[in-house]
């Protein structure tokens, strides 16, 4: 702790940080541009000037850039000093000499850091009377808009895109006052994290292009804290709505989970909510053509449930509450987890490892502090994108530390540290079936079959001292890799092992667990990340239920004839022919879902469910962290309801004992925590619905929200009563408590004078730290819970190519593999066409080349794909894009006949 004096006041502050962060952490207002809490300082913009004084006698002082100056004990500085203030105003005047003055048509306006800082410095009059330099814009793809004239040359964009996220196709060009930030030529920005530029850039150079399609100012949206549905990591998001459609997703800072960033699937994958394929009315197939309301549909379903033998199929993309409500409605013995075979196996195993092992699974931000990384069978950028960003930070850990030791600069001296690091990376090993885009970071990247990856993993565990049988059929290269990895892991202070659903091979997960257990025996604080396929796979597994197979069996042998399917497209879980047979045998298929999909085609009753934006719910991410998402807006029609509410209503009409007396969200949570012990504590994730601050609810809308008395006036000039939210402490209006809400229910970040995303500073304990009353979410799984797990001994057999056959393995795509995000036009545009990836040997053997068509048969059913050839692929294997619309093959790995 150091004592510093700011404008005559004394503060106790942390040492080792810079003055800018320190001032901001203390809640003081100080303008800045080039510094970013996650990117550090470079001292490029000169906006953060303050005056420091030698001692008490010194009245003259000297101007310094606060972001480049470390905290020293007994330091005296002044923010309000006249000269410093005048300097800051002057600087912004310079930065604005070429500004195009087009705030009115700028999408950043109203949430613009440049506007905020201009007001903060008091710069209000243009003294520059010469002409402005201009730039041409570039086309950057479907996600980002480019308006280069607004640039203030802070360099944040390239520092984020290149240095932080490892992008290759964006840079700064030209010199002096001509500098240009963009691509070498027009084209799609390749990075999976490009969308963050819209938040990182303090001006309107980079803005969200999907927002532009239905543009709304920040002050005009209705917001709620939410959780990304894009993958198993559960990044925190803020979702904003206007006029009944979802408009934008922005990062909801969470110091443990996603920090300041999101991936592009998460940021842009929201448009399914506004899709024309939404199910908007309850419907009964038998009564098509008749005009029936919700009550009649419920009555119909009641009769069917009473007469039929009912089973329920849950979903890993539905909330815990909805799955639980279904489980209670149909009864535990009739509740099936709607996961495909492989997914089910992998998630079960992952949960077992996390629960019974000794090793802690880290949050994403913890994972970023690792200093050696082993990735087994996972193409992270496509299976758990934000984790890849953590890995990027982790591989910098060792060289950055070295650089700091040798050059004696602080870690926030970004340019200096990077200069000293050069291109050095810490130890990182990536084993996968095909090369990944992270391979450039890897000490060694090695491609082989998943089974072999598992065997290498087992050998590594043994090399680390695990009591396992030796594996002696590894090649020399593999043997050497094992030795190298073992040495790196033993040298590391915080080794990290990553595996998961990407390999679709249980052996790989077991191997990862073994490695960590072996490290644990050496008392190393190792970390194990296991990725999960969907946003609530882990939660569903923890809730527990039967396999999907047994649902199929039950229907096939007549034990059941009526199924309630919750937010699930069974054509993504079962082979098409199996699903067809299944539905043919079902008498009634009651589907509660929000998008019209292949399962909806077969449904006899459709109940329109709310998407995440229209529902409250809880999900558990791959880390075992339960997180709550809250409803953003009341759906356009009352026919659309949260899935759990539909199920409660079904419970009411059928007099279901287990669902009695449940009406609101809190009731479901209460029952859930009572019935399933492992969920204890989730009732505290967000305050209950009756929570009030100063007698008031927390408003979802900013105080400047406009158009209340006009937006619906075309329908009726008398404004309707706003919807009432009985489920959460949030209100659907702009009325309510205006101070800082509890961290778990912050609907949007805004602070007086800070309209942009930078207002996050005001909500943190310290810059880059946790939110004021702790980061939202609760970890439900802690290591050593029972510590039964020691070592897995079942090593998978070597993969052997089989004549005339190909082993199909899933290849994941950030754009395309996820079911809902593909409904965003921009994501659909970036999706690959279905293909089959072959090794050159197999391509030769089957006499096909790139772009040729190849027909394979799975279970006797033919599938035709376009061929891609990848020299890194093992002979005898074929990669198929997983989950991609139009692929048709669901369960992988499996054998296919050529």
């Amino acid at each position, binding site marked *: 702790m150091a004592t510093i004096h700011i404008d005559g006041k004394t503060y106790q502050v942390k040492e080792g940080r810079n003055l800018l962060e320190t001032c901001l952490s203390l809640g003081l207002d100080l303008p800045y541009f080039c510094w970013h809490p996650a990117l550090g300082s470079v001292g490029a913009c000169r906006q953060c000037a303050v005056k420091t004084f030698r001692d008490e006698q010194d009245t003259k002082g000297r101007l310094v850039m606060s972001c480049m100056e470390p905290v020293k004990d007994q330091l005296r500085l002044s923010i309000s000093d006249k000269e410093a203030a005048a300097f800051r105003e002057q600087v912004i005047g310079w930065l604005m000499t070429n500004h195009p003055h087009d705030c009115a048509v700028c999408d950043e306006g109203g949430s613009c850091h440049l506007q905020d800082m201009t007001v903060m410095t008091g710069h209000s009059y243009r003294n520059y009377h010469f*002409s402005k330099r*201009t730039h*041409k814009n570039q086309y950057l793809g479907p996600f980002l808009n480019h308006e280069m004239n607004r640039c203030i040359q802070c360099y944040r964009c390239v520092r984020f895109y290149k240095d932080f996220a490892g992008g290759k196709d964006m840079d700064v*060009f030209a010199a002096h006052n001509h500098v*240009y930030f963009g691509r070498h030529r027009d084209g799609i920005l390749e990075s999976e994290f490009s969308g963050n530029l819209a938040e990182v850039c303090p001006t309107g150079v980079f803005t969200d292009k999907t927002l532009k399609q239905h543009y709304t100012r920040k002050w005009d949206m209705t917001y709620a804290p939410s959780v990304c549905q894009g993958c198993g990591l559960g990044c925190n998001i803020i979702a904003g709505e206007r006029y009944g459609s979802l408009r934008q997703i922005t990062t909801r800072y969470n110091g443990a989970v996603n920090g300041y960033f999101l991936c592009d699937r998460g940021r842009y994958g929201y448009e399914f909510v506004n899709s024309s394929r939404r199910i908007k009315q309850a419907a009964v197939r038998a009564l098509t053509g008749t005009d029936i309301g919700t009550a009649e549909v419920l009555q119909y379903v009641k009769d069917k449930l009473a007469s039929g033998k009912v089973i329920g199929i849950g979903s890993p993309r539905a909330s815990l509450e909805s799955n639980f409500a279904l489980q209670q409605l149909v009864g535990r013995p009739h509740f099936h987890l709607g996961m495909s075979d492989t997914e089910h196996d992998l998630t079960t195993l992952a949960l077992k490892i996390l629960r019974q092992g000794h090793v802690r699974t880290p949050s994403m931000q913890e994972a970023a502090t690792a200093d050696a990384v082993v990735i087994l069978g996972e193409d992270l950028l496509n299976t758990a994108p934000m984790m890849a960003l953590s890995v990027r930070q982790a591989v910098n850990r060792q060289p950055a530390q070295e650089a700091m030791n040798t050059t004696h600069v602080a870690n926030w001296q970004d340019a200096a540290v990077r200069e000293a690091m050069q291109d050095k990376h810490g130890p990182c090993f990536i084993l996968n079936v095909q090369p990944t885009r992270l391979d450039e970071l890897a000490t060694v990247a090695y491609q082989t079959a998943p089974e072999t990856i598992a065997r290498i993993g087992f050998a590594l565990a043994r090399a680390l001292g695990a009591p396992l049988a030796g594996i002696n059929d590894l090649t020399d290269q593999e043997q050497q890799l094992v030795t190298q990895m073992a040495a790196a892991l033993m040298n590391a202070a915080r080794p990290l092992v990553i595996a998961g659903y990407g390999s679709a091979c249980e052996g790989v997960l077991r191997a990862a667990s073994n490695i960590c257990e072996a490290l644990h025996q050496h008392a190393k604080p190792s970390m194990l990340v296991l990725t999960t396929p969907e946003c609530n796979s882990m939660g569903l597994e923890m809730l527990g239920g039967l396999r999907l197979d047994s649902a199929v069996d039950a229907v096939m042998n007549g034990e059941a004839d009526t199924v309630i399917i919750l937010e699930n497209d069974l054509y993504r879980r079962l082979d098409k022919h199996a699903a067809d047979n299944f539905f043919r045998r079902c008498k009634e298929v009651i589907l509660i879902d929000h998008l019209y999909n292949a399962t909806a085609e077969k449904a006899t009753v459709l109940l329109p469910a709310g998407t995440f934006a229209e529902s409250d719910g809880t999900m558990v991410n791959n880390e075992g962290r339960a997180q709550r998402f809250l409803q953003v807006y009341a759906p356009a029609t009352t026919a659309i309801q949260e899935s759990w509410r539909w199920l409660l209503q079904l419970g009411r009409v059928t007099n279901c004992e287990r669902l009695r007396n449940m009406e609101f969200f809190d009731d479901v949570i209460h029952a859930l925590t009572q019935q399933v012990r492992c969920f204890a504590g989730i009732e505290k994730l967000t305050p209950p619905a009756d929570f009030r601050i100063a007698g008031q609810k927390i408003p979802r809308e900013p105080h400047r929200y*406009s*158009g209340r008395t*006009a937006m619906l006036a*075309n329908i009726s*000039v008398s404004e309707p009563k706003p919807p009432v939210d009985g489920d959460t402490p949030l209100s659907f209006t702009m009325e309510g408590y205006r101070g800082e809400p509890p961290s778990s229910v912050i609907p949007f970040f805004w602070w007086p004078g800070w309209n942009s995303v930078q207002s996050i500073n005001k909500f943190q304990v310290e810059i880059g730290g946790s939110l004021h009353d702790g980061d939202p979410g609760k970890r439900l799984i802690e290591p050593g819970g029972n510590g039964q797990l020691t070592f897995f001994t079942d090593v998978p057999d070597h993969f052997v190519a089989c004549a005339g056959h190909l082993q199909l393995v899933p290849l994941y795509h950030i754009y395309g593999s996820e079911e809902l995000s593909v409904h965003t036009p921009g994501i659909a545009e970036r999706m690959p066409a279905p293909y089959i990836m072959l090794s050159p040997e197999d391509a030769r053997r089957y006499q096909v080349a790139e772009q040729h068509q190849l027909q394979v048969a799975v279970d006797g059913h033919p599938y035709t794909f376009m061929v891609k050839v990848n020299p890194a692929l093992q002979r005898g294997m074929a990669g198929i894009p997983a989950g991609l619309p139009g692929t048709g093959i669901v369960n992988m790995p499996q054998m296919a006949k050529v």
Partner: protein
Amino acid sequence: MFSLLRSMWLVFLHMFHKRETYQYPEHKAPIPARWRGRIALTRDPDGGERCVGCYLCAAACPVDCISLQATEAEDGRRYPLFFRINFSRCIFCGFCEEACPTYAIQLLPDFEMAEYNRQNLVYEKEDLLINSQGKYPGYNYYRVAGMSIQGKDKGEAEHEEPPVDIKSLLP
């Protein structure tokens, strides 16, 4: 007694004063140009819609009676897809006009907007858009702001240099 007579005398004198009463509606009162009455959306000198859908009027409106949706035309110009003012709520404060960066929204000297049915006081863009520049002739936002639109490329706005060739090595 005296004050009584004085008042009667003064009232009597008023008979010879100029009449202030207008025989409305036969006679219209002259209204100053800056009278805050009926709100209109004006056009720029080239006949294009001035409103760029920036939402500032809506944000400034104290009774929140303006609602619009911005969109972008093929030629790059922004415009409101719909623009609605609920005049049954409007207090004719003129804040919207003051907030407007393009001089699009203007309060005009006309107050004859009474309706029997309140619903008729909801004006849509068709009702608001007029074929005139209103009180501020000559102003064209796109001539000033740097955003390029069809017919006005980068570097062609006021006080702009032609776009930089970033590949040039000249200083």
